[in-house]
């Protein structure tokens, strides 16, 4: 229901209410996991994440990790695609495999009363995927269909332009799903190689939430993961960013233009990160009272929605935003955003804005708890950021500690009008490349 900002999904710390107790579990075989026990409903959510994702694609093999990920559930061991799906459905287990630029995620839910069978099936998929040629061909066609759609989808077009402009030849610079050409050329051997490179124990993060005890989880993890290869492919290096203010227009027919704007960000480890995240909240965060929402939508009616996010990825960081507007309103919207950027860099925020953002962020914090699968995914994100399991107890204090002077300093450091670049896909009136 929120504005679609799929591109900017963050691995941001998303911790819990203080009373949720996170336990660290070390399996007998040495696998570390975080667990929130919740025995109220007879199922468990288990989340696995393998660091790397589509950025591990080899040169000229763009899309191989994405295709591989989509194929993990298409048959394993003695089961073909149909057999695997039937077995999974008979257990009412849910396995979801996905990938992004920083990792492969395995999100699962399974019932307590057939947990062992469900995990047996998942182990089969993670250790003995078949990658049958007919499945490779069939799923490849689905990926290609998606890529053909993206070629005429303004949001995808804008993302791809933005990525290429900022990150160039680094894997971040192109769509992890690949291109029509690269995906068409992928072979079953490529898929196998991608699997061996991406799914390994040296890059795994694990969390569970639900109806399972620490001992049960430890045994489960050893059985599930022991047969995975110890090590996979090397991770890619830091993405060099090319940031230059301006506007890039890509012609596309339709009543509206899709606009993405971006500039450099801050690493999560940066001491100013908390102040920067409050700043982002005030500019274009999740609230209707955020500045851009107020100025562009509520006061002027130029768009249905606008938002920004402070993205801290494994190999780069950026402050980005997006909106859609009628072609004759794009120019005015861009001017409003530029004015806000300049204003923010020069003046920071008001005492009241800071206080409101703080009460929102600290109050909203415990509400992030929203079911077992959400918690499992949050716990994986926290571990990937290197956070302590007691972080949820100290997080709000870190938000509270940010002062108006901090915000002013960080605004001057972070907000760079001269770096802000707009990608416009559409037929905007009075907007040209600059």
């Amino acid at each position, binding site marked *: 229901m929120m504005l679609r900002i799929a591109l900017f999904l963050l691995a941001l710390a998303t911790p819990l209410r203080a009373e949720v107790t996170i336990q660290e579990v070390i399996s007998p075989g040495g696998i570390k996991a975080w667990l929130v026990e919740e025995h109220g*409903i007879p*199922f468990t959510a288990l989340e696995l994440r393998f660091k790397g994702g589509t950025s591990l694609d080899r040169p000229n093999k763009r899309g191989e990790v994405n295709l591989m990920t989509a194929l993990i559930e298409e048959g394993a061991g003695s089961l073909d695609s149909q057999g695997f799906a039937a077995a999974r459905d008979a257990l009412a287990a849910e396995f979801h495999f996905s990938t992004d630029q920083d990792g492969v995620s395995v999100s699962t839910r399974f019932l307590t009363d057939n947990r062992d069978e469900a995990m047996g099936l998942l182990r089969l998929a993670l250790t003995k995927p078949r990658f049958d040629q007919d499945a490779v061909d069939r799923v490849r066609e689905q990926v290609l269909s998606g890529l053909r759609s993206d070629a005429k989808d303004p949001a995808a077009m804008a993302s791809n332009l933005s990525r290429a402009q900022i990150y160039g030849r680094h894997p971040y610079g192109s769509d992890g799903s690949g291109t029509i050409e690269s995906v068409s050329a992928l072979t079953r051997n490529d898929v196998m190689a991608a699997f061996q490179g991406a799914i390994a124990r040296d890059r795994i993060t694990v969390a569970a939430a639900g109806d399972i005890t620490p001992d049960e989880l430890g045994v489960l993890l050893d059985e599930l993961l022991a047969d995975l290869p110890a090590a996979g492919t090397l991770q890619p290096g830091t993405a060099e960013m090319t940031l230059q203010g301006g506007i890039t227009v890509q012609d596309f027919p339709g009543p509206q233009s899709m606009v993405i704007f971006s500039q450099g960000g801050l690493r999560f480890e940066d001491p100013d990160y908390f102040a920067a995240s409050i700043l982002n909240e005030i500019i274009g965060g999740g609230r209707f*009272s955020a500045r851009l929402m107020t100025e562009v939508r509520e006061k*002027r009616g130029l768009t*249905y929605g606008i938002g920004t996010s402070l993205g801290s990825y494994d190999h780069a960081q950026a402050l980005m935003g997006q909106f859609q507007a009628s072609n004759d309103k794009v120019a005015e919207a861009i001017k409003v955003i530029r004015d806000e950027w300049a204003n923010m860099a020069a003046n920071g925020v008001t005492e009241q804005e800071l206080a*409101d953002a703080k009460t929102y962020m600290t*109050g909203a914090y415990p*509400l992030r708890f929203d*079911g077992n699968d959400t918690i499992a995914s949050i716990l994986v994100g926290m571990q990937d950021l290197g956070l302590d399991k007691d972080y949820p107890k100290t997080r709000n204090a870190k938000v509270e500690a940010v002062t108006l002077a901090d915000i002013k300093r960080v605004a001057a450091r972070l907000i760079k009008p001269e770096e802000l670049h707009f990608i416009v896909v559409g037929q905007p009136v009075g907007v040209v490349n600059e």
Partner: protein
Amino acid sequence: MRRTLGRALMGLFALALPAAADTVSNFTLDNGMQVVVIEDHRAPVVTHMVWYKIGRADEAPGHSGIAHFFEHLMFKGTKTVAPGEFSATVEQQGGNDNAFTSNDYTAYFQRIAADRLDLMMQLEADRMVNLTMSEEDVATERQVILEERGQRVDSDPASLLREQMSAAQFLNHPYSIPVIGWRDEIAALTRQDALDFYRAYYAPNNAILVVAGDVDPQAVLEMAKTHYGPLPPSDKIKPRQRPAEPPQLAERRLVLSDQRVAQPYIARSYLAPERNPGDQKQAAALAVLAELLGGSGTTSILARALQFDTQTAVYASAFYDGTSLDPETFGLVLVPSEGVALADAEKAMDDVIAEFLKKGVNAKDLERIKTKVRAAEIYSRDSAGGLARDYGAALAVGLTLQDVADWPNLLQAVTAEDVMAAANLVLNRNQAVTGWLTATEAAQ
């Protein structure tokens, strides 16, 4: 975002409605407002929703989009709360708020720490009767909604096809008109239209309060009595009688060509009965039918035949909701493989359906779906907010709590014969609309 179109956002699959009756309480205030409380004490959070039994299909002719437009205006201030202050107050308390409109209802909700429930009720009760809105705010918001239509419909050929297909599907019933409204009619909506709409439909006896989360039902009732109890009921609320759809006698077909289309596809909608109070058996059979035909990308009948046995399609699915006030549709979507003509893909799909109607239901398939239904009930208990939505939507279209509680059992009780009877009733092209979305002109 806030003030969005419910129909587009709600899942179309009817399988996941929960029973969990032991944690649900039901009251009615003296002024006629229904109060439903769903307890979930795992986290100190509450979802507070007010559902109005008024939607797009209840609008006066020529005023399409007023229900949704008005939903936006509910955030534009009351005698004591300034425009925008509602959301700002919720946000200052660490909560989020939003609203959505469908053909049959309009709902407003906040998700917030459980100890702030009283404030939410105070704010929500206030805007049920005390709304004010300036001409200027109405004018700006109209622009926002035209932008919304531009973003969600006019920029998206798939949305345009859905809109055209609904218009073709319903000759007489108002489900023919899009929830957001036709552009020219939205542009003509006035502040007076909004005020008239407000006075006619916003009253406690046309509303349902649903509270889900870490709350005590008696305490919620007392709070509701304090805030909603004093509001006067309206004597203008009438039974919702809409023009009925006449029998469809002939197949309807359309082709939408748009240069922005990269991936052509086929959509089919069949007129289908909905869930009715005390009478949901047929709808349960249709929900199971949708799951059997196209509920899984691997094991469903359409997927097996068109994606596995042959490579006709890259995607095939079937869907049915059934939670509506009046008869709605049973849908199919088919995305052909590269190089497969739409006509050939459609024929293959129809052959699969004909074959299914001849051969009947595979017992194993039926068992697999029932397992899935049982698990869905367990998984759905993990989200109190989701439960609040499920209950609110069902009640707002006239179903009862008993109907909601019965639904999973009815799904479990569906037999192969029930499915085939429903399939034979619904899967008839003379009661259907078939739409093609193409990049260029295509001959049908």
